[in-house]
């Protein structure tokens, strides 16, 4: 039983480490900024997740205390990772792209990061569209 738990903790640690290094290697290796956003998500979810699960299992099995702190960290990372990725993508759109290089935004408007004062005036002059009921 102890051997099985040891094996499980060791396997989780190895999986976490491998995914952590893969995430950071992808950050160097991929050559498109938008696909570079994709690589560190593996380090966030599987890398840190594996290490946190291993730590929790280790504490419960060998250290005679049980803690939920790790689950809190995992939850926090899962909540904040999409927000961070959205902000970084917006920075990329703002700095590296122009209005012409971006695909159509859909509707009758364009990408909000490329707004100009003229757009603001045009939007205020136009009648407000009917709200969706």
């Amino acid at each position, binding site marked *: 039983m102890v051997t099985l738990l040891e094996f499980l903790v*060791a396997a989780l640690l190895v999986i976490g480490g491998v995914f952590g290094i893969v995430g950071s290697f992808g*950050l*160097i290796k991929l050559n498109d900024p938008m696909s570079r956003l994709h690589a560190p998500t593996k*380090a966030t979810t599987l890398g840190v997740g594996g290490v946190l699960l291993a730590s929790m299992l280790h504490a419960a099995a060998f250290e005679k205390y049980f803690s939920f702190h790790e689950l809190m960290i995992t939850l926090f990372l899962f909540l904040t990772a999409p*927000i961070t990725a959205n902000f*970084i993508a917006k*920075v990329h759109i703002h700095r590296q792209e122009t209005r012409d290089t971006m695909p159509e935004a859909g509707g009758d408007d364009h990408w909000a990061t490329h707004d100009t004062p003229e757009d603001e005036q045009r939007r205020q002059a136009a009648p407000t569209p009917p709200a969706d009921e």
Partner: protein
Amino acid sequence: MIGSAATFAFGCFALAMLMNLWKVVTAPNVADRILALDTMFINAIALMVLYGLALGTEIFFEAAMIIAMLGFVSTVAYARFILRGNIIE
């Protein structure tokens, strides 16, 4: 077995952090630099938790939690500064 696995994971995350540092130095633009710094925070959390596991204490979980919060706040503040030229408007 756990000891060697922890050593392996330590090596992996240390190497990952070095790669991130390399990316921070050589990044072609600001978005990549913010992304590399954010990944560095993630790897720091993993290293902190690993250190707590290796020593058998739970005192490092709080430190990892604080690093996670600071990482999120600083990444958002950096991105917001690039986007708006201001953090709190």
